[in-house]
């Protein structure tokens, strides 16, 4: 579940990053049933500086983690953009997914209109989950 302000913040950050991939992490709370409510978007640097790779800038990640904890929330996921491909995790995304409890959000600019999809990745198994927009 993501509020419109946070969705806009995430998509705008990814647009700003073009032609490179952009990335960031999501603060929030876990909900029953395995979903999560996003309470903060933390845009981070992409140390890979690439149109094909992303790597969350480690110190940005540390700052986001501390802010989330201070807010009584936690990091619940990561987002990144795909500049020319679908909003689906790539084999690299799947292999390197750091936490099975996280939500992996992809923002695709393959078409002019951005596409936002969310995935769970556990032990190499990928499952899409709905992105629910909170008004």
């Amino acid at each position, binding site marked *: 579940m993501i509020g419109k302000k946070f969705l806009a913040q995430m998509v705008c950050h990814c647009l700003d990053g073009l032609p490179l991939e952009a990335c960031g992490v999501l603060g929030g709370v876990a909900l029953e049933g395995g979903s999560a409510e996003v309470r903060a978007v933390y845009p981070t640097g992409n140390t890979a500086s690439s149109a*094909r790779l992303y790597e969350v800038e*480690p110190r940005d*990640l540390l700052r986001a983690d501390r802010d989330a904890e201070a807010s009584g929330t936690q990091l619940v996921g990561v987002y*990144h953009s795909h500049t020319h491909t679908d909003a689906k995790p790539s084999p690299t995304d799947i292999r390197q997914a750091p936490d099975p409890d996280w939500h992996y959000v992809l923002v695709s600019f393959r078409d002019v209109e951005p596409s936002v999809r969310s995935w769970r990745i556990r032990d190499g198994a990928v499952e899409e989950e709905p992105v629910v927009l909170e008004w």
Partner: protein
Amino acid sequence: MSVAVRLPAILRPAAGGESTVEAEGATVGEVFEDLIRRHPALKDQLLTGDGDLHRHLNVFLNDDDIRYLGKLDAKVGDDDTLTLMPAVAGGVR
């Protein structure tokens, strides 16, 4: 020296579910040795088979990435905090 080690959620099951644990040592490497002695399940998460820092792990001594402080040789003191975080990365390939 006793330092606090903050663990990301993914590593907590290997440390009895704790989010912060204490460990002793004068360097990050010594703290890791003590940490692994107390929580052996952490070993493969922290270090490679050669005893180097795992490349998918970020380690911060207070606010600083230990890669710029001498890695496992970085000196630690009382009241320091080590924060472990997974590297978060991916790509189209």
